[in-house]
């Protein structure tokens, strides 16, 4: 069986989001299927400018076919069009224009799918909101599996997506909340759908002590890992944390890892380490008291799963339904929706090592039950087996085409 993973960007250099999710799944599924990746030559997710030069290459034993972006995104124009669409009534044509503006504009990839549809058994599309998924699924709905990686943002209410979610053979969701949201939006309950997510692998060795020594962290700390951005709720986290420090006199520190898009407050209690190696990341996580996850929009937080895999509790933003739902299902994290709840939850976690340990153990159990690679692979295989077994659909679809 030959399966193509279709994603907006792909490469070892891309270390987050749906792209990393796709790479990990592709690399784990290559032992079950012949796997290829169809993607763009882009690296920058803001402009989608061509970066990779080769049309074909092998990455970790997987053949990658790259297609050029015919027109990079103009962020100013795109922002203006999106704002206009979100501000008021509009037609489907406007949404399609928005889609072209958003990109990555890769008509050659769509042409390739059209010409070689018979060469592949299934196309697994990642990220519902981009050009490749929209046109690809419309072209080969009978062979499409969509991993939407959808968050609760405004554009999901566009008409084109309501129809899109009803087209593929199957949908693979990241969380129960994502599934509920998409079902409610598009009434697509009749389509095969499964909550799967993504696994993670912990390094064999990690040492929180080494990390604490390296960065002279004497008191306990909570850690944030990821892009430091307003959309990720980081500015709110800084405000809440500094106010918490001022009001309680706690010795807790906040350690930040990742690229920053905003100004980080200058405070001895906030330690910014920038982009760090995987080794440092896991060491830092291991040495921390808990992970802070202040994001408002997540379809699945990989770093939260990593924290749970390491037995660390999480303090999450309750405004994000996915994070709140995961904390409740796993019983492995507390959450806050305002400063009062933040300070109460953080004080409780800081003061009670028993609570941290109990939540961390629950997290570890939740991870092992739902997110080890064996389980993820089995879920993907069972979806494909289910589709293969659906002969009626196949015969009706062949009559249709």
């Amino acid at each position: 069986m030959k399966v193509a993973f279709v994603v907006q960007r792909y490469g070892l250099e891309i270390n987050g989001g749906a792209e990393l999710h796709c790479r990990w799944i592709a690399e784990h599924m290559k032992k079950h299927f012949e796997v290829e990746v169809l993607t763009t030559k882009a690296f920058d997710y803001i402009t989608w400018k061509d970066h990779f030069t080769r049309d074909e290459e092998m990455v970790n034993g997987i053949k990658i076919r790259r297609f050029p972006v015919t027109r990079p995104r103009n962020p100013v124009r795109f922002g203006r069009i999106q704002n206009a669409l979100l501000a008021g009534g509009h037609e489907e044509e406007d949404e399609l224009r928005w889609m072209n503006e958003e990109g990555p504009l890769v008509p050659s990839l769509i042409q390739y799918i059209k010409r070689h549809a018979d060469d592949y058994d299934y196309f697994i599309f990642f990220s519902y909101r981009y050009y490749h998924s929209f046109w690809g699924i419309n072209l080969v709905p009978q062979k499409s599996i969509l991993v939407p990686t959808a968050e609760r943002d405004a554009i999901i209410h566009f008409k084109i997506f309501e129809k899109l979610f009803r087209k593929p053979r199957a949908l693979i969701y990241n969380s129960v909340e994502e599934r509920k949201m998409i079902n409610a939006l598009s009434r697509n309950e009749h389509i095969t759908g499964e909550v799967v997510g993504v696994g993670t692998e912990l390094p064999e060795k990690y040492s929180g002590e080494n990390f604490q020594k390296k960065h002279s962290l004497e008191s306990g700390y909570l850690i944030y890992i990821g892009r430091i951005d307003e959309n990720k709720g980081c500015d709110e986290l800084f405000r809440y944390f500094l106010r918490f420090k001022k009001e309680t006199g706690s010795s807790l520190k906040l350690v930040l890892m990742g690229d920053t898009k905003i100004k980080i407050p200058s405070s001895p209690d906030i330690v910014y380490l920038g982009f760090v190696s995987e080794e440092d990341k896991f060491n830092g996580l291991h040495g921390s008291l808990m992970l802070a996850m202040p994001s408002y929009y997540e379809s699945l937080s990989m770093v939260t799963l990593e924290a749970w895999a390491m037995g660390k509790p999480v303090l999450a933003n309750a405004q994000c339904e996915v994070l709140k739902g995961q904390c409740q299902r796993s019983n492995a994290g507390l959450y806050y929706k305002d400063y009062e709840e933040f300070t109460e939850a953080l004080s409780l976690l800081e003061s009670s090592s028993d609570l941290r340990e109990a939540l961390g153990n629950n997290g570890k159990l939740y991870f092992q039950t739902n997110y080890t690679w064996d389980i993820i692979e089995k879920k993907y295989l069972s979806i494909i087996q289910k589709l293969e077994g659906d002969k009626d659909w196949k015969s009706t679809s062949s009559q249709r085409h």
Partner: protein
Amino acid sequence: MAEEKKERQTGQENGEIRIDYDNIDVEDIMRQIRERIAARPVKPVPEKVPFDSRDAAFFPPDYEEEAGPAGIKGRLKNLILRIMRPLSPLIKLLILPVHEEVRRTVINLDQTNRRLDYINARIEDDLNRLRAELDHVNQVTNERLDMALDDIVRIKEYSKLLHNLSHNLVVELTKLKIEEEHLRSASRILDKNFAMLGKRERALEKEVFK
């Protein structure tokens, strides 16, 4: 052992959050946190008293009205006031210029405030007008930019076509040049063959006519 467990279970009771560490329920903990927040006494917000420039501060209090508080302090105050009573016209006379000056200042301040309010309103109007104009200019500029961007994309595609065309022309010219060279070579070979056949003809003629 059972006691230890109980201790662990009720370990947070002093802090008002009850946690069963052997069977953690996050929703229950969050519910208790919310209840605890809700039970906190609401801090009274001090009411802001609007400042009035004509407050009593600018007008000296009538000492007679204030006289009469009980206790030693009050009696002392009354005594001093009684002693000073004969001098009160003089005191009033002395503070009269100051009083007049304060009154004028208040009037001036009031007028200045009114002017400032008027100027603020004007500035706000002007700003609104400017914002509207700016929005309009932005809209027009954006539309023009869109058109220009479309033109640029079109010109870019056209340039690509021209580039391909010139590339094709160069290829065709090269092919023609090669063809020409080939034909020239063929012609030279034919000339040589013709000359050789002439010589042969002459040699044969010689043999025939011998």
